């Protein structure tokens, strides 16, 4: 199923990118004859379906098309790996921060349900979902780099961790909101469940109750929303990376699409990697779900 999905995605992307307007050769100084020669060299003159078959056969051998950028002839894979690594590092940092802050907010909200703090946490969550991370990034950049000159104005690879803080913060906004909302709802559900009520009746209260009964049960499903967020961060960081000058996959994608020439090979290769990551993680989650949450296993057994 996952393989089929991936195949379909690749097919649609492949066809789309060749149909939409745009020219992979942003040449101004070549004659028509030479452009045709170039296109033929790269097999772009063949019918799209045949190009697709060629592409798939090369992909199965582990290479993205002819493996080089149409734009500068440099091999795709090593550059993509470096960029993936950069994006991944920042992504992990923002997930760590986003999860921590999200959990904190969610728990506070659940414990103070209906009160002022709950409302505040809800507002923060809504803002987090509404404000695009790059807008927050521009705000951070303006304030912390320009007004008070604390963080570097552009990403500085020689101080990786330090200059990762602002982009990681801005990217974590969405994670904070998602995790907080999810945690709050789960906790409230658990707190209203019979077993918690029973525990309370037996005399357990306060921190003990929360830690042993409520949190443990409420946090299990939260794990499942974090995984897809990781991929979302890799792909969602496009504008943020571009603004801050981070050599990540997001910037790579923007440049491949919006550069002078549309780099078919890069756009496809990156899209395939993004889709594969996403599908892979969803598959993993489906499997993990059963392992993490005993109730699913039990219900499945009873049904069988």
């Amino acid at each position, binding site marked *: 199923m996952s393989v089929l999905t991936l195949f379909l995605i690749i097919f649609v992307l492949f066809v789309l990118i060749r149909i939409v307007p745009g020219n992979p050769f942003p040449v101004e100084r070549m004659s*028509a004859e030479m452009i045709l020669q170039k296109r033929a060299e790269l097999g772009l003159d063949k019918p799209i379906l045949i190009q697709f078959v060629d592409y798939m056969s090369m992909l199965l051998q582990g290479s993205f098309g002819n493996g080089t950028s149409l734009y500068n002839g440099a091999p795709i894979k090593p550059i993509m790996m470096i960029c993936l690594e950069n994006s991944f590092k920042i992504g992990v940092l923002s997930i760590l921060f986003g999860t921590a802050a999200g959990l904190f907010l969610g728990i506070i909200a659940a414990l103070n349900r209906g009160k002022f703090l709950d409302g505040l946490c809800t507002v923060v969550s809504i803002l987090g979902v509404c404000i695009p991370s790059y807008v927050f990034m521009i705000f951070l950049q303006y304030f912390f780099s320009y007004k008070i000159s604390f963080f570097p104005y552009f990403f500085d690879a020689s101080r990786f961790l330090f200059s990762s803080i602002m982009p990681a913060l801005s990217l974590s906004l969405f994670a904070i909101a998602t995790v907080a909302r999810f945690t709050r709802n789960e906790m409230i559900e658990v707190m209203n469940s019979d077993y918690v009520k029973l525990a309370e009746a037996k005399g357990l209260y306060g921190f003990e109750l929360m830690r042993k009964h409520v949190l443990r049960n409420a946090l299990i499903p939260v794990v499942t929303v974090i995984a897809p967020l990781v991929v979302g961060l890799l792909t969602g960081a496009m504008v943020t990376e571009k603004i801050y000058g981070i050599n990540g996959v997001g910037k790579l994608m923007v440049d491949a699409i919006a550069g002078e020439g549309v780099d078919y090979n890069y756009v496809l290769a990156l899209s395939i990697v993004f889709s594969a990551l996403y599908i892979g993680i969803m598959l993993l989650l489906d499997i993990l779900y059963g392992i993490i949450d005993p109730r699913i296993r039990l219900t499945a057994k009873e049904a069988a």
Partner: protein
Amino acid sequence: MFKKFFMLICAALLIAGCGGGEESANNKLSVMLASNVVSLDSGQCTDVASFEVIADCIDGLTQLDADGKAIPAIAESFDVSQDGKTYTFHLRDAKWSNGDDVTADDFVFAWRRHCQKAEEYAYIMDSTVACVKNADAVIKGGDPTTLGVSAPDPKTFVVELDAPVSFFPALMSFPTFYPINEKFYNSLDSGTYGTTPDTFLSNGAFVLSDYLPGTANIQLKKNDSYWNADKISLDAWQYQVVSSSDNALIAFKNGTLNLVTISGSQVEHVQADAELSKNLKSIPSGALSYLTFNQDPKNHHAGALANVNLRLAISNAIDRESLTENYVMNGSTPTYTAIPIHFAPNAKTGKFFAEDQNQFADYVGFDVDKARGFFEKAKSELGKDSFELEVIYSNDGGGSTKVIQAIKSQVEENLPGVILKLQPMPKAEYLDKVTTNSFDLALTDWVPDYDDPMTFLTLWTTEGCEICEHWSNADYDKIIADCTSGSLAADYDARWNAMYDAEKILLENAVIAPLFTNANAILIAPNISGVDFHVAGVNRVFKSATIK
């Protein structure tokens, strides 16, 4: 559990935060690049950013001094044969950054390879520009060893030309003519040359210390084995790719960048700030902005623009003074010739080719009555009195929108009946439309590759590149052919005058409507000096730059 987690994050942030004290890097040159470097392979790259960075790292046979005159670089001296068709360059003892000698074979290898690769800039070797012997045949797939270059000994490089080229020594400062170390190149995996600091060799002023294709930040440092290393004062410096000029302006105010290019609309803002405006300079760029008319009689608006009077009418209905003053605003100059101003000085008189802006006043200018006269003629010839025309332009830079809107309102007001429909699009799509002729008018910027009018005039020949199709004039083609590789090539004055004749044909037919010669508004920090700006080829040179 989550508490520990949270504390860990806090601790990490705190530790990281402590690194913030060292933020006073103002004494390091940080230069804005407006677009990514496409490739550091001199046979592959096509963009000004790449040319600039390659020229930082590699020296060619010659280089340009602050005034744009060719002075020796790797070639200590050169001899020209009597007929001007054979150049013998005597190379100095220069080294590559891996310790190898720079030899004539490195030039032979690079030149042959570029012709064989036949990328976009291979054209600069062929009979339209450098006229290197047999270059046309090699570019079309011929045997690269037949190219007119040879290395009789490691320190002598001989180039044979099909025709004398008056600007040949200056042309040698262009990156396509730079050497590549053959042994080093062959030791690399295919396609990896120039993709990291390890796969790139310098023989010039600087070496790369951090680079990746498409990178946002490029670090360079002084090349200690450079032949002229004593004259290089910059130690370590960097480029930052910033595509938004708003971002660049803030980064300049902040001290993060100390040389940036800003847009016309920002100039006003900068001038209002007394402190900031001291850093403002306007640098002539040599790039011409003009309107291209699609003269294809079969195009979807029934080929109205195939009518010369309609084209002349539009060209004369545009108030270029008002355009540059109120909409471009970065110091650009109104231009009434097909060759931009501040460009291509005559070798004998030193006067710029387009010094006389009035010589084609009959065809190009701003005169509403004249424009309406042309328009009436066009209407009766075409039997129509309203024309809806599509204008395409690239809005990647953002600056063109105001300019094109101003042109629209001027033309529509001065020529009642003409309606211009504006079609903004990304550069990639724009170039696609231009090369496939799906437009009526296109706003074009052309950046000169070398300091000779031919870099513009060859655009409009029948055989020329795709940017201006469906106009063909045998007289024009003949003049250009005579000037580049034919009978006039050897006679400097005759060639110079013939180019004016060609320009006249171009403008009396209104193949284009010249608008203005671009300038770049830059902000440069007061502690920086010695950056050379050139109108053609490599636009900025940092070899003699100093920072206090």
